[in-house]
């Protein structure tokens, strides 16, 4: 682990230093987590439930503040949610009163929401018209990329679970964030949809290669995605192992190397298992 950390030091986009989180009821979710993430990498985090995986993600996204330690984003401390960090939740979490288009548009953040508002100055009008058309292009592009053009004006209640999750992916991708956090994004889907969506996400990732940080409890999913797999062990959550997975993409799920890594990680998660 030490040489790996050393070689990534210069390039890190996100750095966590001695992050700890203690909840109000006294339980310690994370303690002394040190982590560096290089740009354009896919990092998977696995761990048993209750090992603080989700908490780690929420701290990075700025939804929760750590009790101890610091976070650095390109060398600067983070103190809240950022537009260039996207978040895909376990559930789609779509706004039921907005159409697919409007839901995806939310991902552009507050500035792009002022649709059709009047501006007094001519210059402003022109600028807002420009940004309006840009926003429109970005949104329809994102919807097209997840293959939902036909449902652009549908409401969330008209979508299936897999489609709704694809809208959530489009919402996270639309602002072209450089880091996307995924909190067990496929765990609520059926097996076929999960496979489909995993492949789809990988294909999307290939085009502009944002950094992905995926939290999952599924070791296979972690291996399909990860250039690096981090194993957290619980109570209190801390990093136990950090594996560099140098398998070619697309990953062969039934190859012997894949199986080797799967076994290794399972063993690391719980030595009594294998």
């Amino acid at each position, binding site marked *: 682990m030490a040489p790996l950390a050393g070689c990534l030091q210069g390039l890190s986009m996100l750095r966590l230093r001695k992050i700890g989180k203690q909840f109000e009821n006294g339980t310690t979710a994370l303690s002394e987590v040190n982590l560096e993430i290089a740009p354009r990498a896919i990092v998977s985090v696995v761990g048993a439930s209750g090992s603080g995986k989700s908490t780690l993600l929420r701290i990075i996204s700025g939804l929760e503040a750590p009790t101890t330690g610091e976070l650095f984003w390109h060398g600067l401390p983070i103190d809240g*949610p950022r537009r260039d960090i996207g978040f895909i939740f376990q*559930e789609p979490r779509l706004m039921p*009163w907005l159409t697919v288009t409007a839901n995806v548009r*939310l991902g552009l*953040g507050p500035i792009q929401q002022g649709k059709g508002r009047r501006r007094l100055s001519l210059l402003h009008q022109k600028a807002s018209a420009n940004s309006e058309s840009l926003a429109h292009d970005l949104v329809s592009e994102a919807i097209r990329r997840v293959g939902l053009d036909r449902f652009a004006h549908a*409401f969330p*209640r008209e979508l299936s679970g897999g489609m709704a999750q694809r809208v959530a992916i489009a919402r996270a991708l639309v602002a072209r964030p450089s880091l996307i956090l995924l909190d067990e994004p496929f765990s609520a889907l059926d097996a076929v949809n999960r496979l489909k969506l995993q492949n789809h996400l990988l294909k999307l990732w290939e085009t502009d290669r944002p950094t992905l940080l995926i939290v999952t409890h599924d070791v296979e999913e972690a291996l399909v995605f990860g250039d690096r797999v981090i194993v957290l062990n619980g109570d209190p959550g801390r990093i136990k192992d950090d594996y560099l997975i140098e398998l070619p993409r697309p990953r062969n799920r039934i190859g012997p190397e894949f199986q080797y890594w799967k076994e290794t990680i399972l063993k690391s998660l719980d030595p009594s298992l294998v």
Partner: protein
Amino acid sequence: MHRLLNPLGFAVGQLAVFKARAKRRYLRHNGRASNAEKQPTGRGPEGCVENGSAASLLVSHVSIQICSFLPPRRRPILNATKPKGFRRRCTSVAGPSAFTKAAADTSSSGISQTLFSVAWARWRSAFLGLLIPTILVAAWEILVRLGQIDGSLFSSPALIVSELSKLIANGALLQHLESTFFRIVAGFAIGVLAATLLGALTGFSKLGRQLLDPLLQSLRSIPSMAWVPLFILWLGINENSKICLIALGVFFPVYLNLMNGVQNVDRKLVEVGLATGFHGVQLMRTIVLPASLPAYLVGLRQGLALGWMFVVAAEIMGASRGLGYLLIDGEATGRPAIMFSAVILFAICGKLTDSVLVGLSERWLRWQDVYKG
């Protein structure tokens, strides 16, 4: 052979279908044996839509599945029920001439029968809603005429109608309605505005809630009628005191519902907003307020109902116009028909304004995935 079996001149296929239907009842729903049957080809059995006049309006049939246990019901699609542009568009092989021929030999009674069924489909719910009131009014009228009810206490509906038409004729009713509506609209607007601002603030901000909510809750527990003398003292017996009283009545239900609605917004949706960089007023406007809209609309309806209650109180406490004044005037001059008129008008106005809010709710809450009953 066909002629023998077919004295009424059915198409052969159709006859077979009718026979089969008569024998096996579950086949009755089964629209047609072939596409040729899309258009009426002859007389069907008694009461069949294809017979006579209806044929001129009949375009096709549609099968409607009402319940999975029942066979699909067959319903005619009639020309008159279609949007203008699609009327009289004929899809049969015979072309439009079949329509004109059918139209030519229709009797006028048949047409009116068909139009009735169209109107019935449209106004069914209105008719059902008015059914029981109509029966009650009729019973009331009959009982008064028979002398079973004292007409000097319960004026007969006919008398009420004649009083009402007198009021309409001399223009007094319009004036009363005008001033009552002015009061309720002004009071409702002020009450809703204040409640929306304060409810959103106390729902959204913990500090705001700690500062304002105890005060507002204790004001709420003052019986509203207790404010009447104070308002008269402060503002005099004029429109201002009345509008203030109505606004006060409207304020609390709207405020409480909105505050609760905002507090109960799904944390997960708010997190989506936070993670994409929304905060403060923008978060409120984009996510929190739309999410609490259902609760807010319930508050508006309750507020409106209280508004009507308070407009009566305000007009009884001293007014020279308005429905409440009409009520008091009827009492003072011993004319129960006038009092009944005022009460009925209150019922109608209250129902109409509430229907406006219901209509708005349905429009704004179309996105909801709810059981519609």
